[in-house]
């Protein structure tokens, strides 16, 4: 088996806060291969963004990696020094942030912001960077790129700003793209256009994409494999088709039935009882146990087994569906 581009192994992250230590991620493992899209799915507060920030090295100072490794292209990101990380960040790994209008600098034109990335990584001189920026804008299908190069973020619509974010992220031809909710707040028509753009880049350049989303429909359509996270734990992972057809973890099964599709009836639509557990408290082995309808006493007496459901499809559960 070929070595994956990115592999996260047993990553555990804690945040120290005044109200106690928040156990944000616990033993998260996943792998992302070149030319594929991996979906990270979970509710808000489940630790999806913390995972993304730890990979790109933007974790808040209060966050502490207590164990685990993040291996990118055969090197452990967590043991790198700041200079090494700087050279990777934005060039080999780049990220599309959740809210384009606040992630872009409001007082610089969008063209300048794309040039900044290119010049910073010394891929081009500042003179040729202008042409490169315009080419990037054209590649993400922004009409009239030479005029838009001079535009400020507030002059563009949400969909356009998101395209600029993608252009910035792709300007150094990264090997790994992390897209954190790239289409939240956009219209369905714009959403489809943006996602197609990301998919096209993934397949044509053999880039690896990590799509972080809470929209199961989106993940199902665009991802090759999916990792489901609940309260900082990976509960299930596997190829998209297998995972949606035979969800094994009760949480995945509930998520699937809670997502309306074109042929669900309102009566069939179920919700997930309760909320995420308080991550500051002492947590049971199974963090879903408080919400689970299949819960038994045995579930929280020993560490959970990782059960193989099908090829590459695993669920971390004592009583899978």
């Amino acid at each position, binding site marked *: 088996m070929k070595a994956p581009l990115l592999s996260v192994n047993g990553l555990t992250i804690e945040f120290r806060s005044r109200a106690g230590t928040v156990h944000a991620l616990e033993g998260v493992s996943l792998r992302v291969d070149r030319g594929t899209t991996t979906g990270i799915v979970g509710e808000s507060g489940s630790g999806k963004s913390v995972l993304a920030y730890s990979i790109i090295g933007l974790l808040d100072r209060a966050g502490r990696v207590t164990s685990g490794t993040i291996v990118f292209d055969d090197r452990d990101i967590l043991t790198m020094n700041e200079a090494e990380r700087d050279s990777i960040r934005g060039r080999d790994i780049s990220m599309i942030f959740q809210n384009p209008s606040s992630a872009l600098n409001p007082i610089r034109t969008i063209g300048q912001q794309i040039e900044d990335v290119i010049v910073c990584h010394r891929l081009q001189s500042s003179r040729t960077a202008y042409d490169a920026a315009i080419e990037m804008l054209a590649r993400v299908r922004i009409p009239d790129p030479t005029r838009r190069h001079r535009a400020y973020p507030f002059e563009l619509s949400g969909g356009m700003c998101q395209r600029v974010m993608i252009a910035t992220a792709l300007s150094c031809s990264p090997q790994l793209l992390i897209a954190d909710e790239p289409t939240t707040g956009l219209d369905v028509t714009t959403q489809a256009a943006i996602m197609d753009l990301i998919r096209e880049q993934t397949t044509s350049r053999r880039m690896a994409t990590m799509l972080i989303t809470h929209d199961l429909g989106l993940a199902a359509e665009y991802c090759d494999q999916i990792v489901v996270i609940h309260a900082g734990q990976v509960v299930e992972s596997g190829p998209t088709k297998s995972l949606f057809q035979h969800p094994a973890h009760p949480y995945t099964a509930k998520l699937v039935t809670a997502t*309306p599709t074109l042929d669900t009836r309102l009566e069939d639509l179920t919700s*997930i009882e309760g909320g995420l557990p308080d991550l500051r408290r002492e947590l049971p082995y199974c963090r879903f146990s408080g919400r689970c309808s299949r819960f038994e006493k045995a579930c929280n007496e020993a560490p959970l087994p990782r059960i193989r459901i099908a090829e590459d499809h695993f669920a971390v559960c004592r009583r899978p569906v």
Partner: protein
Amino acid sequence: MTPHLEVTDLRKLYPVGAARGRSLIKRFFGPQHMLHAVDGISFSIEQGESVGLVGESGCGKSTVVRLISRLIDPTSGTILFRGHKIDDIPARRFSASPYRRDIQIVFQDPTGSLNPRYTARATIADPLRRLMRMRSRRDVNRRVSEIAEMVGLPIELLSRFPHQLSGGQRARVGIGRAIAVEPSLLILDEPTSSLDVSVQAIILHLLADLRRRLKISFLFVSHDLNVVRLLCDRIVVMYLGRIVEIGCARDVLSAPGHPYSKALVSAIPSGIQTNTTRGHLTGEARSPVDPEPNICRFFGRCPQGSDRCMREEPVLRPVNADRLVACHFASET
């Protein structure tokens, strides 16, 4: 029977500033540019019916919501509520009219639309005091508890402030405040867009249940067609201030008549079953500022556009018994 709400040729235009680089003289004395937010729309909601209003951001959905709930005054057109003309009551005096109680809104952002200094109890009690003239504290408290039970909000949470509540609980407070005064028309502006799927299902069930029990009519505004389909009988599709299609929810989604509706439907992530390539919209939307009167608003993005679309703007016309489509090419089915 008169419809619950009937909107005819409703228009809302906003004056916008002159283009940059114009001389001062032109800026002050030149022609005033108008943004056509809502441009002559007509539709109706029957008693107890649930109508979905869909379209992309900037198409005028929210302006329609504000016009119908009478938070702003229309430029022209009529709004008949149970046969009574309500468009001529000035927006600032509408809260004193008897119809205020009848038309209530659940706002899009449950956090931003709640007063951070009001507890959940005070939030729900406020309209009871103001609109229903409920004076005695005992009556108000009893009614608030009743409402809390109806929307599934635990009584002990009533003394909390918005920041102490979860997203789903805030959504319940917002819905509770709206139904407290027993409205007959409830306008829901993207009520679930800020919620997780796990909570969204609960709120959708709650809304369906309230509609059944209280027999209220819904105007459900959303861009999530999967959600609209679950709660609505009919769908109104808007594009750039105009209605492009009206029809029964199930039919519009299974066989959209207007090219824009087709694009909307095909853009829904369809899950794992299909891997078909979809006809995506290319190009940019036309500007809503001073739109040319004789060109179809969708021209330029429409895959079917022809010369005729540039000469003559299509009008909303019936294509069969319960479907209206504004497109030259819509055929009868």
